[in-house]
């Protein structure tokens, strides 16, 4: 099913027979204290388009640098991701992508219309206050 949408959006994704391990990249994501979106975007391209190994320290360090961020060895440590996974599971998250908003869990990007609606209402409330 994912292949259909990748083709339709001209995204040259490579689907591997067996999913690769992404632990080190996820450790970085959990440890970053700045906006992680550039790193996330770069990591997805690296895995899905360039076929890179997100559990290779050299690759992950390069991704951090490519994202314009400062790399340090602490970013590869796993304590933060362990906590993050525990919290997510306690909230009822069991798959990705998952969105947690207003104590509701939404699994899958198909929920975007509802998520947009919630965010729009929040923004409206904020602008009224």
């Amino acid at each position, binding site marked *: *099913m994912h292949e*259909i*949408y990748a083709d*339709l*959006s001209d995204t040259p994704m490579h689907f591997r027979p067996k999913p690769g391990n992404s632990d080190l990249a996820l450790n970085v994501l959990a440890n970053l204290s700045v906006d992680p979106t550039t790193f996330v975007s770069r990591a997805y391209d690296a895995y899905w388009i360039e076929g890179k190994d997100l559990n290779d320290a050299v690759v992950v360090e390069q991704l951090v640098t490519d994202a314009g961020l400062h790399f340090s060895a602490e970013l590869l440590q796993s304590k933060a991701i362990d906590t993050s996974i525990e919290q997510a599971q306690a909230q*009822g998250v*069991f798959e990705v992508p998952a969105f947690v908003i207003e104590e*509701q*869990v*939404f*699994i*899958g*990007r*198909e*929920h*975007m*219309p*509802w998520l947009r*609606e919630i965010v729009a209402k929040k923004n409206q409330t904020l602008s009224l206050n």
Partner: protein
Amino acid sequence: MQHYESPLIATAGQPAIVYIDIKSPYAFVALKPIFALERELGVQFDWRPLTLDIPSYLGSAKKKAGKVVESNRSASQWSGVKYAYRDARRYIERQGYILKGTEKIWDSSIANIGILWVVEHARDKLEAYLEAVYPPFWRRELDIEDVAVVAACITAAGVDADGFEAFQAGIGKAVHDQLQGQLHSNNIYGVPTYVVDGQILFGREHLPLVRWHLTGKQGDAPDICYELNSEPYLKPNT
């Protein structure tokens, strides 16, 4: 009644096939949007039953008075089942309906054979039949394993149910069972599933893509999404 020629080819040249199961909450949520798309495009789809074998992929469990009394589900299967109900419930409530989790895994084959009966005898009444079955079943008010109950739903939809009892035990069951035997080997295993332009799309999130296919593939293809109804389709059933 003719047996289906193929799980992937519409019987009478309809532009899409839609597979549903009465016992699927996700099919329940998909119904109104699919019928709305039929009206929007001025077409009728080829609706067919897919009687899910839920224990084979989600384990099985029985509840009594709200408590689980029997279960062979793993923790992750339970997470999936609980989430599926919560998710379907919040969307169906936006449509003005109620969804209560079932207390057992129902055999929905008779009610699904009812789909074959209605399609055969009064296709225009299909939405009325599904309206007579889905909402009360999901309010836990309908025993869909009882032939007389299903026949009453057919009648309530304005369709003659004379002969349904024999049909569901005879040719209707044969057609249903033969179709079920062909689905998995053709990669059709869940509901709702749409077949359009030979493409199999499982899940109501693909409805935007179905529309795109059926309107000449104009512009960029849409991504998956659960489209929101701005108003409830019905007043809440309270």
